[in-house]
């Protein structure tokens, strides 16, 4: 079969079956082309099914392409959105930053709570010791003040008694001997 004849028959087969000429040229021998050309009516019977099959395949390919596009789109990337969220959280300060990180469990909450708990216990202990110490010193001071007041009253009475009964000079002597030098 010459080339011209082969092309003419392939054109007929393609028209009848709906299969593209390049595929027929590529895959069919001269004998097969000759045989198929004798059964064009039969091939025409499967043309619509064949067209529908290609339509469905095209749809599936489109769907797969769309998914691939969506997957590659940076807007839909979980890694990129997580990175953006993290940068936003880290740009905040203090309590706001802590609370934002806490929402995603990014703060070592248990470690922090354990440390905080120890710190709070220590602070409370120091405060209690300081309070008790202050109360104790107040009590000691109260006792000593009371004792000083008693001794002062006693000495004041003794001074008065000596001055009245033995004279001011005697008190002066007693003061210089027993009080002032001590």
């Amino acid at each position: 079969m010459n080339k011209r004849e082969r092309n003419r028959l392939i054109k007929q087969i393609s028209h009848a079956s709906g299969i593209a000429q390049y595929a027929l040229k590529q895959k069919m021998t001269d004998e097969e082309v000759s045989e198929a050309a004798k059964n064009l009516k039969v091939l025409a019977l499967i043309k619509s099914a064949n067209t529908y099959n290609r339509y469905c395949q095209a749809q599936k390919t489109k769907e797969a392409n769309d998914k691939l596009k969506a997957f590659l789109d940076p807007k839909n990337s979980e890694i990129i959105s997580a990175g953006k969220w993290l940068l936003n959280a880290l740009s905040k300060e203090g309590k706001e930053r802590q609370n934002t990180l806490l929402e995603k469990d990014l703060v070592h909450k248990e470690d922090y709570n354990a440390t905080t708990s120890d710190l709070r216990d220590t602070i409370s202990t120091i405060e209690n010791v300081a309070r008790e110490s202050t109360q104790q010193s107040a009590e000691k001071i109260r006792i000593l003040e009371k004792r000083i007041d008693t001794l002062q009253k006693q000495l004041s009475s003794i001074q008065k008694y000596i001055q009245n009964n033995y004279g001011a000079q005697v008190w002066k002597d007693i003061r210089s001997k027993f009080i002032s030098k001590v």
Partner: protein
Amino acid sequence: MNKDNLKALYRGSDINEVWQSYQNERVIEHPKLGLISPNEYRQSYHGKPCPFCGKKMVHGKANYSTKSRQEAISRGYQYKTQNGKNYINHAGRFPRLYFHPHYVTLDHKVNKARCPELLFEVSNLQIMCWKCNQNKSDNNNFEAEQDYNFVSDLAREALSKYKKL
């Protein structure tokens, strides 16, 4: 002045009399200011902050006292004591003088009525404003209580800052 004689002062009136009579005598041996009188000691703290409340202290009767109670109130000398009563610092009877709330005073750490031998000892003297002195009264545990209040405030601040998550 024979400081040994201070040891034999037993009556509050005697102790006060000695204290008042030496207000302008140089009887305090200050390590930095030298030998100074109680009044000079007070004067040197004019315009400086009270070590207890931090308020600026004043000194000078002419500018910071008045004989009139009404004038004292209008000048803002009246304040509330710890138990919530209105009070104006005052001294003397005839005439009575009303003073600025943060007028400089010279306080005895251990009160002079109980330890007259420390009357002019610089280690037993401390400057504070009149209001703080009024608040201290004759409390010999005042400094310890002030320190405790400071520690307590720090503790409260720390506990409110480091709460559990």
